[in-house]
């Protein structure tokens, strides 16, 4: 998406000279901040596999409450606080209804959307919500929306702060890990000891809180609020999140994606305006551009990986695409194939050893069942790949070590998605891996810890050889090297 953003910037710079001016760039950023903030909260919620439709209306309500309190009490601090708290309140209701009561998030937040919209309408009915009604000095209220620090608009600073904080929370804290694991598999997250209800409520509370904050900034910027403010922003926020790589099905996404998505949309909309697109056709061009941006993202990613699609014969071409795709994909995630395999070797051999000590009869039975299903030669390659993945996951789960489980998930998630369905298709791979799997299950179910660890190492070394041969990476060292690398803990 960075490439798409760069392409957008380049195109609009050529189309309209005023686009790249500092003033306009400031405008773009400030205009994007509201969608960005909402998209940050939305991304959190989406990663857990839920959705928050109320963010736009919450932003409107918060702006209305801020103006109302400002007008009635003339107190800036109190007004800002009430605005943020009103957003928080909607978030708490959402969190309670979805996580605790167990309502479908789409319907629950659709209802709070209507409630927040209604709240703003009532306030608007009571008195006009304009800053001119308040007899306070501009001062810090204006500063929030219009102020600058070192030439950077305050809203932009707030937006960036939210992105950085949430990105840190997502990637570095156990709360962040529970957000992802709930999105991937809620049942498994619960079994792994994550506080599912608490996390699911908190993402809504945070989303409401951020929407409240965005409402305060918007109120300060506009100096007024009227019924209907913020309606429809939720779709833009979802769009920004999804463009940034968040999946509606949960388990994927981050704040950097939300940032890029919001900027892609913001630049597009500002650039099209400056390029003089007829207002009547604006929506048409905007919609088409969104599709264009998604396509460009794919093409640019492929082009950057240097694939020539026509040069190679069909089979060779498929392999090249796989190779480049897997490498490129992992490079984007800031890691490499050998890195991931090392991590996997380290984690899984430990998991195998622990599993052999702690396995329950039920789990042992599951492993045997999986093994016998894998031995069925009529099973399709995809089916086999899935069973293979389940086998490994069951072993890791049987270790009953939550730290290990969540680390394992992060390390292998990308790898499994990309290569299990493609690479494992090779028929030879199946035959070879079967004996490894059989030894592994045998060692674990007979509760021989040392043998289990050894079997897992051997099995994963085979996997590494296969993958290396397929990816043609040319390994740096022989088997001993990998074991050493694994033991040194990467």
């Amino acid at each position, binding site marked *: 998406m960075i490439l798409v953003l760069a392409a957008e910037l380049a195109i609009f710079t050529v189309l309209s000279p005023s686009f790249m001016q500092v003033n306009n760039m400031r405008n773009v950023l400030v205009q994007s901040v509201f969608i960005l903030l909402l998209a940050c909260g939305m991304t959190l919620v989406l990663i857990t596999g839920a959705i928050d439709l109320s963010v736009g209306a919450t932003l409107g309500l918060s702006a209305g409450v801020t103006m109302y309190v400002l007008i009635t009490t003339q107190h800036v601090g109190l007004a800002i606080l009430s605005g943020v708290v009103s957003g928080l309140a909607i978030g708490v209701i959402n969190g309670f209804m979805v996580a605790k009561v167990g309502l479908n998030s789409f*319907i629950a937040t659709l209802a709070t959307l209507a409630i927040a919209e209604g709240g703003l309408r009532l306030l608007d009915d009571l008195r006009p919500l304009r800053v001119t009604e308040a007899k306070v000095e501009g001062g810090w209220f204006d500063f929030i929306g219009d102020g600058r620090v070192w030439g950077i608009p305050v809203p932009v600073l707030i937006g960036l702060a939210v992105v950085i904080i949430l990105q840190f929370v997502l990637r570095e804290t156990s709360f962040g890990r529970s957000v992802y694991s709930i999105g991937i598999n809620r049942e498994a997250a619960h079994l792994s000891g994550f506080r599912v209800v608490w996390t699911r409520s908190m993402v809504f509370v945070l989303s409401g809180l951020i929407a409240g904050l965005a409402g305060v900034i918007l109120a300060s910027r506009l100096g007024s609020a009227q019924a209907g403010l913020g309606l429809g922003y939720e779709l833009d926020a979802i769009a920004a999140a999804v463009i940034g790589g968040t999946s509606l099905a949960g388990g994927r996404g981050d704040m950097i994606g939300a940032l890029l998505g919001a900027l892609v949309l913001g630049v597009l909309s500002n650039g099209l305006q400056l390029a003089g697109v007829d207002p009547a056709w604006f929506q048409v061009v905007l*919609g088409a551009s969104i599709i264009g941006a*998604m396509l460009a993202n794919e093409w640019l990613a492929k082009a950057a990986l240097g694939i020539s699609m026509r040069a190679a014969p069909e089979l060779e071409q498929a392999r090249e695409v796989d190779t480049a795709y897997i490498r490129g994909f992992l490079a984007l995630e800031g890691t490499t194939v050998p890195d991931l395999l090392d991590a996997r070797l380290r984690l899984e051999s430990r998991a195998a050893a622990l599993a052999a000590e702690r396995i329950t009869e039920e789990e042992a039975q599951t492993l045997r069942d999986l093994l016998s299903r894998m031995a069925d030669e009529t099973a399709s390659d995809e089916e086999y790949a899935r069973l293979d993945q389940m086998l490994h996951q069951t072993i890791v789960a049987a270790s009953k070590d939550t730290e290990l489980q969540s680390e394992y998930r992060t390390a292998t998630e990308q790898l499994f998605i990309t290569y299990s369905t493609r690479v494992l298709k090779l028929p030879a791979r199946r035959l070879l891996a079967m004996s490894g799997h059989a030894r592994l299950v045998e060692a674990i179910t007979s509760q021989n810890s040392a043998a289990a660890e050894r079997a897992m190492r051997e099995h994963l070394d085979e996997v590494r050889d296969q993958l290396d041969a397929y990816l043609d990476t040319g390994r740096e060292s022989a088997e001993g090297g990998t074991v050493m690398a694994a033991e040194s803990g990467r």
Partner: protein
Amino acid sequence: MTGEPKGPTSGTSRQRIAAVLARPGVSLLIFVVAISIVAGLLEPSFFTVNNWVNMVNQMIFVLIVGIGMTVVLIGGGIDLSVGSIVGLSGGVTAWLMGNGVPLGAAVVVGIVTGLGLGIVNGLVITRLKIPDFIATLATLAVIRGLLHAWTEGVPFTGYSTEGYRLLAGLDPLVWRITVPMIVAAGVAALAALMLRYTSIGRHIRATGSNREAASLAGVRVNGVKILLYAGSGTLAGLAGILLAGRLDTVQPQMGADLMILAIAAAILGGAALTGGRGSILGAVVGAFTLILIQNLVNLFNITPAWEPLIIGVVILAAVVFNRTSTLVVRRASKRKAEGVAA
């Protein structure tokens, strides 16, 4: 709801009741009936034929679009562009009528417009491999933008004819029965039968529950996807034609609110955004619930400023009721099962 089990003999009937209650839309229906009784006691004009015919007439648009949405959701997609398709198809038919094209031709072109836009959605999603949500969000903007650009902000009006009034239900067919009522009932019945008894229905459900597995089982998942969006587009086109006839004016924002209502109706009726689940009967009850809430707000002369707030609270009440009754039923039947086992 269901009390303690009294003995082994009461088991089967009790379990049967529990099974019926656990079906999508049934507990919501109980909520609707309860609310209706309370409303009827408070406001006698609620239980008049007039009011109910009114509600059914209002419900038709949400219902027709909502059925398309339910099927799309079952198939694992989501169609955000339906509101815009309603607007553009209605606009096409209205414009053709205004320029002297006969009703039949105008209606066919309107429906084909919806079908075409639906196929475009399906192709964008399957060929260009763009996520359903983003693809239909983009076509939502494009289609709505086309209507804006075409009308230049000036609504189409004064195109109605006697035939169009009959078709759109402004004039009844027999007694108070109108053509749109029959159309909506037919659409609902066809959709329910298709989902239940045809292989296409099974393919749709399979695609929605597990796309990869369905594909391995020989379902042409891309074909199913295109079919889903084509169907949803066609139904939106149909709703657009009926709505344009009903309103006798097409303004550029026509139908914009139908998208969220249609999704809400489908989900109230038990559909899930994650695909594979949903029922037509549920969507009917869901659509009716939404219309009932609006009707009550109107009937009790609630100040417009309070309207959205109350709608929100009642929707919340409805889903909480739906949820708790499902839980109660599930717990009761579980207790029953344990009792039988012991």
